[in-house]
């Protein structure tokens, strides 16, 4: 599903965020990406979302080389992946329903079908009853679940998450992780960046460990 070959990323020609990183994630896998802050977790995700291009190497997703994807093709590429952000990236002037519906509106889904899918996604994360609320009226954990609902509403084959439990207490974090595992169980490939080592250890999935921009360990699922 994801393939990194000798990927390097420099910023401003000096700072080397990633150096010669190579790994592959199979379709249907759930993988943790871990390391201290600044180790390169976010860079890996940013490259996968095509927010940045690698300075060296090749990245392919679902068999396609995305490093040379034309700018005009990027939106269509991004529609194939769902992304969950640490800071949720919700629109604060729109209701929960509208936030979750956004990916479908961008794709041009028919209103009735969009409504069904949004309800299904909100139901999945247990927030169907809050669809009319504004993000500000929700707790941090609830906002994160809205972010997850938005990421999965269009049923992407690949789900990326950047510190999805960063600001949550252990109980809420465990709940959120269970959601990701649920989606993984039905076939979605999941790549999660997190530095919550205790949580990662409990969950027994494959772990990619980064240190100073290099991949230092690839631990298979226990």
């Amino acid at each position, binding site marked *: 599903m994801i393939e990194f070959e000798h990927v390097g990323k420099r910023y401003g020609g000096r700072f080397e965020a990633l150096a010669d990183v190579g790994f592959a994630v199979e379709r249907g896998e759930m993988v943790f990406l871990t390391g201290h802050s600044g180790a390169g977790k976010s860079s890996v995700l940013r490259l996968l*979302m*095509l*927010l*940045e*291009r690698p300075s060296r190497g090749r990245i392919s*997703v*679902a068999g396609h080389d995305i490093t040379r994807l034309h*700018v*005009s093709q*990027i*939106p*269509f*590429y*991004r*529609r*194939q992946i769902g*992304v969950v952000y640490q800071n949720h*990236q*919700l*629109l*604060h002037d729109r209701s929960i329903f509208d936030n979750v519906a*956004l*990916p*479908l*509106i*961008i*794709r*041009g*889904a*028919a*209103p*009735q*079908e969009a409504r*069904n*899918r949004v*309800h*299904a996604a909100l*139901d*999945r994360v247990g927030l169907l009853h809050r669809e009319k609320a504004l993000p500000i009226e929700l707790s941090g954990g609830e906002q994160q679940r809205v972010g997850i609902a*938005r990421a*999965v509403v*269009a*049923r*992407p*084959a*690949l789900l990326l998450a950047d510190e999805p439990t960063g600001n949550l207490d252990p109980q809420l974090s465990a709940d959120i992780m269970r959601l990701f595992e649920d*989606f993984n169980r*039905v*076939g*979605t*490939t999941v790549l999660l960046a997190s530095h919550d080592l205790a949580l990662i250890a409990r969950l027994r999935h494959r772990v990619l460990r980064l240190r100073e921009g290099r991949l230092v360990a690839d631990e298979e699922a226990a």
Partner: protein
Amino acid sequence: MTRSQPPSRDSAPPRRGARTHQITAEGRSRAWRRHHRQMALDSLGRLRRRPLSTLLTMLAIAIAMVLPATLWLALGSAQLLDANLDDSARMTLYLDQGLSESQAMAVAERARAEAGVAGTELITAAAGLAEFQQRLGMEDALAMIDDNPLPATVLVQPQSRDPQAAQALAERLGAIDGVEEARLDMAWLERLRQLGELGRRIVLVFGVLFGLGVLLVVGNTIRLAVESRREEIEVVTLIGATHAFVRRPFLYVGAWYGLGGGLLALALLTLGRGWLSAPINAIAQSFGSRFELPGIGPGGSLLLLLVSTLLGLIGAWLAVGRHLAEIRPR
């Protein structure tokens, strides 16, 4: 990424194989129209929620549109004058005093037969006097003169507009017996034509300058709107919005600004015309003539609205385009 069957309409959670969304071409064009409709209304709603700043922006556009439009109208009336002038590209043959009416007719015939003459019109001395009296309202003064002081004249319409040919023709016509003088006032005509050209260029310069002004006004306003919705743009871009999708609401805002500004400009032009027409009519009447200030007319109104809307659209496009270029991957 696998593309399985079209998505089912049920609300079941994603099943194995993680379906991606598939949309038919027809559905896509329907969605496209829906989004356009939504954005048109949504952007209008945004403008209506801030009536004062909207009005100010539109007014700025209107003012920038009014000056070139006014100049354009002024040029239009000058061109009206020019059309009359083409008529007076004719030559006038002043005949000898004291020619009888039949002699004058014979001279007109001879002139008519000259090569390069398209037509002639004889104005007898009596007819000339009558017209003179009528035009100037000087019946009383002229009645005191016993003899008709005006010569008979022949108006000659040359075939060619070429100044040199006209000059040569005038010389030949002047040599005809009974013709006192053949007059062709070329220099005056040429000067007027140059003035017309100057006017056109001035309108062009002002049109371009003020058009740029409209672009700047709209561009700057839209830039602020983009700034205030930066977060939203980032989010929708992250989840796969195309540039067209991001641009759309702002283009509508720009177009509404342009259209509103154009309508205001029309209102200002109409008001201005009403305001000026009373004194101008009074002046024209005092000269015993009628002069109608040229209005912009339906065609001109449409053109004005089209141009202002287009300028709004382009201004918005440039403003959003700059922002979109900033967020492309590096």
